[in-house]
Structure formats: C-alpha cells, structure tokens
C-alpha cells in the first residue's frame, strides 16, 4: 500500500543520491554506528599520533596492573601498557580488514562484471574454477594458504583476499547478469552503444549499490577473521600489537587479569558493530526493497 500522494510523486523529483542520503540519515542505528566509528577512529588515529609506538614495547611497568589513570587499560604480563597496544594494534587489524575487503571486492567486481557481461566459454571456465574453490570451507582455504605461504601478516592478507574473491565474483556476476537483462541496457545496445560505454555508463553505476553493500558487510567480517587468524597464531606474531594476537597472549592469564582479554576484544566488537550498523543502514538506504 502506498501512502504517497500521487501528486507528490509527480512533482517532488528528488535526485537519487539525495534520496539515498536522506534515507540513510533517517536510519538511527546507522547514524549511531557512524558516530561510534568516528569516535573510535579519532581515538585510534589520535592515539597513534600522541602515544609513541615505543610505549607498546615498554616493559618498565608493573605486570598485571588493573586499569588506572596512568595505564587506562592496565598492564599486561610483562608490564606493557594495554591501552597503547590496543591503540597501535588498530593499525594492523583495520588495515587487514579494510585492505582485504577493498582489494577482494575490486578484483572480484572486475572479474564478475566481465564474466557476467560477456558470458561465453571464458565465463564458464572461470566460474567452474571458482565453484570448486568455494567447495573448500573458507576457514580451511585460508589455513591451507597460510600453511603453504608461511605464517605472517602479508601472507594472511593474501590468503584472505583469495578466499574472499570467489564469493564476490559470484555476487557481482549475478548482479550484472540481472542488469544486462534490463531493458535500458538492451535499449542502449540497439542504439549501437559500445560494450565499454555500456559497462561504464550503465552497468557499473547500477551495480555500484549492491557492491557497496557487499563491501560494507565484508569489512566487519574481515576485521574479525583477521583477528581470529592472528589469535590462532597464523598472522601477526608477538610482540607486535594486534587485537587477536593480544587476546591470544592473554589466554594464560585469564584468571589473574581478565582485563587483558576484555579490552582488545571490546575494540574488535565495537569496531565490527559500528561498521555492521553502517552497512545495514547503507543496505536499507540503497535498496529500500530489502528493508523488512
């Protein structure tokens, strides 16, 4: 049932992007997520500038101190300042999370768009290949890749990108396939518009919404999975600060000093949650039909 007055539909021609922005701004959880993320980023970026990195490795403090004015998040088992480590840990966690998403989505979109638009034999072969890769459970694929390439941040990043690309390709390909069936694309073809122009002017702008939604929902998952692999010991190696690795280090001291586990974990939760909220808001704003 549309409550919209017919005449307002006729006369209020709001541009699409402004309409999307308006819907997004009306979404309270998304705005909340935005504010939290901004505060978090200010805290982390400001912290990285103000707190010298040296402080992460400074073992002069008393071990296992609880939170205090001097050590906001307390100190760890060898007396390092946990707050400094959480702040500097954000660099690696966020970089892997955002980096792997952006690169995999860019790669996947490119392959997916080309496969979906041109179809044919190449598309068939590429898709069969990715189908097979998707038969390997994601976590195992990353583990196998890390096992082959060796443990380390760079290799973890590569492994995560490889594991994320097939899903993106499949998603973008089906989006593009749906789009090429649309009449305005058929129409452009009958005008004799070149393939390149069609992809750039018609397909990509229309596929952008779904791709942004995909990206937003992948970032949080990627941050969490980067932390998980570091926790398992496949990513960042101690003493470099990273959230997952810090939680892993705290495992032996859960009884004496639960704050060692709590603070790095909370950082992940807050970051992931605010990004998720923004992602949901973007989804609702870009594609109101998906909203329930």
């Amino acid at each position, binding site marked *: *049932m549309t*409550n919209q*007055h*017919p005449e307002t539909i006729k006369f209020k021609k709001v541009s699409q992007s402004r309409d999307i922005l308006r819907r997004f701004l009306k979404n309270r959880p998304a705005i909340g997520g935005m504010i939290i993320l901004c505060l978090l980023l200010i805290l982390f970026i400001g912290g990285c500038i103000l707190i010298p990195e040296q402080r992460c490795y400074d073992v002069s403090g008393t071990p296992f101190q609880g939170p205090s004015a001097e050590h906001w998040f307390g100190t760890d088992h060898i007396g390092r300042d946990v707050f400094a480590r959480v702040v500097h840990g954000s660099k690696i966690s966020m970089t892997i999370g955002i980096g792997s998403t952006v690169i995999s989505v860019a790669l996947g979109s490119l392959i997916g768009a080309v496969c979906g638009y041109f179809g044919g034999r190449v598309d068939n072969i590429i898709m069969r290949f990715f189908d097979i890769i998707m038969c390997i459970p994601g976590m195992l694929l990353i583990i196998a890749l890390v096992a082959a390439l060796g443990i380390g941040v760079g290799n973890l990043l590569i492994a995560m990108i490889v594991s994320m690309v097939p899903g993106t390709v499949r998603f973008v390909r089906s989006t593009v396939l749906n789009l090429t069936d649309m009449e305005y694309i058929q129409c452009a073809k009958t005008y004799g518009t070149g393939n390149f122009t069609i992809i750039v002017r018609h397909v990509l702008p229309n596929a952008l919404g779904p791709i942004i939604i995909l990206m937003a929902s992948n970032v949080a998952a990627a941050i969490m999975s980067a932390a998980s692999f570091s926790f398992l010991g496949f990513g960042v190696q101690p003493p470099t600060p990273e959230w997952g690795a810090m939680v892993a280090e705290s495992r032996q001291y859960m009884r004496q000093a639960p704050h060692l586990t709590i603070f790095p974990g909370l950082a992940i939760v807050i970051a992931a949650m605010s990004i998720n909220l923004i992602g949901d808001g973007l989804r609702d704003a870009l594609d109101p039909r998906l909203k329930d």
Partner: protein
Amino acid sequence: MADKKFALEIEDLYVEYVSDETVVRAVNGVSFKLEKGKTVGLVGETGAGKTTTALAAMRLLPDRVGKMAGGSIRLMGDDILALSEKQMNMVRGELISMIFQDPMTALNPIMTVGKQIEESLKLHNSAGRSHEELKKRVDEVLELVGIPASRRDEYPMQFSGGMKQRVVIAIALACSPDILIADEPTTALDVTIQAQVLELIKQMQQDMGMSMLMITHDLGIVVRNCDEVGIMYAGQLVEYGTVEQIFSPGAHHPYTEGLFGSIPKLRSGQKRLVPIEGLMPDPTDLPQGCKFSPRCPHCSERCRQQEPPEIERDGHRLKCFLFSEEGTASDQ
C-alpha cells in the same frame, strides 16, 4: 436488532491502518445489510476500501496494522467482535468464506490442491468424518467446480489461472458456508475464463443457497449477478440501492454518474468516454467535507466544508448535497 433475515449486517464500520507515522482511514462509516440468499455488490476504484470491508467481516485485517475503529459486524445475527479467536476460527470457512482476487498467489505452492481442500474440511469436521470420507468429499468438491478428481494430488503450479481460481472456489465452498465473499474473483483471469468462473460462482450460490458479497469494479458483473449494489468511494458508500435503482436513470451520486460515464455503451452513439478527472484522495489525508468534492463536477462551497448527510428513499441511499432536499434532485 439482530434480524434473522440478514446473513451479514455491517453497521457504521470504520477501519484504520496504522503505521509508524501515518493513519490510513480505509473505511469510514460503511453500513449495509446482506439478505439471506441474496447478493450484494460493492463497486469502486482500487483503494476505495472494498477489500478492507470484506476482510473486516472475516476479522482478517492485517495484524497490528489494521484495526476496526468503530461500528459493528454481525454474521448470521452474531456480533463477530464478541467472538473469541478460537470461535472465529470455527466461523471462518464454515459460516463465511472468501474467494481472493489473485488465484496465482492464493494457493500454497508446496501443498497439493487436495490437501488444501482437505485442510479446510478437517478444520470444520464437527461431524467426525473419517479420513476416507474426507477424501471422498474432496473429490466431490473438485468435481463440483469442474476439476477432475484425479488431479487431487497435483500442485497449484500444474494448474492454469482459471483452474487455480476453481481450486480457490473449491476451498471456499468445501464446508458449504452460508456467506461467500468474492473479492474481484475474475480480475486476474483471462477474459474468456472470466465468464466461466462467474457462471460457476453463480451456480454454486444458487445450489447451496448462499448469500454473497461480490466485490468488483466491473459494473457488467454487478448487473448480471447482484441484487443490491453499493458504490464505494474513499471508504464510504456514496450510493446504495437495488440494481434497478442504481442502473436506471434518475437521481445518482456524481461519482456513480462518473463511473457509468467511463464505460463504453454500444448503442448510445456516444463518441468519447468521459473519464472522472483526478485521482482518489490520499487516504492518510482525506479532504474535509465531501470526499469526492475535489473531483466532482457539481462541487459547491458547501461540499468542501461539510460532509453531506445520507438521504434515503425506498432503500436507495445517497450521500450528496445535490439531493439533500427532497424534490430538488433533478437530472444533471
């Protein structure tokens, strides 16, 4: 008050749909009575509140969103608001049934048609019929609506649109209800099928002695099937009377005139159809005064200020200032 003569009595019905910010006034003071064994037609544009009226009579307004804001509905003399949900479940299907507009979506795609008819029978199996007897009755009902019983175990998607509507009718009629609501039963069908389905419904009604509420926007269907007609506009009955009263020339509501003006007549030699100008008012923001005033060719200042009263003559009810004073009703 409760008269044994009437199958369905709707009195001063108000229905609202409430969403976060807006209140949609879908039905605003509708009253009419359906005599036993007779057919009442409700005519109007999409969004006039016809279906909402019917759903209110079944007490099937959408949960939480739709609610009866006033008035009363009596089925076979009993106030349905007084019934518990459990009693209402017994009433639905057994006393009052409904045929829906779109047969393509009205059937559960993953249940065989036989099962769907049987479900209705099982729910109202006060006679305690056995499984075999129910099966037999399913076959009977299917044959009754013109579907071979052998198709009992097929799924809805194996049926064509017209056949699906027959299944929907079979479900509605399985328990021989007293009242049947047909909500635009032929709108979604091919023209060639429409006549067959209407014929079927009419025949069933006669055979079972049902009372029927026929919702449609097709005046042709009304004249052939109904005894009384209500013309609905913006949630109100702007005119109500017997088929003769509505279809014969004389005093009519401007909206009714407009409806007739937008149908081609073969013999009158008219050159153009006369459409009704404008659109239905936004139900969240109904105009003050007469709801039809923004589109009415005879609109006066008074129409914009006050709501016209309903006047009645020989059961012919009109809601318009043009006729409020006896005798001034003239041809327009």
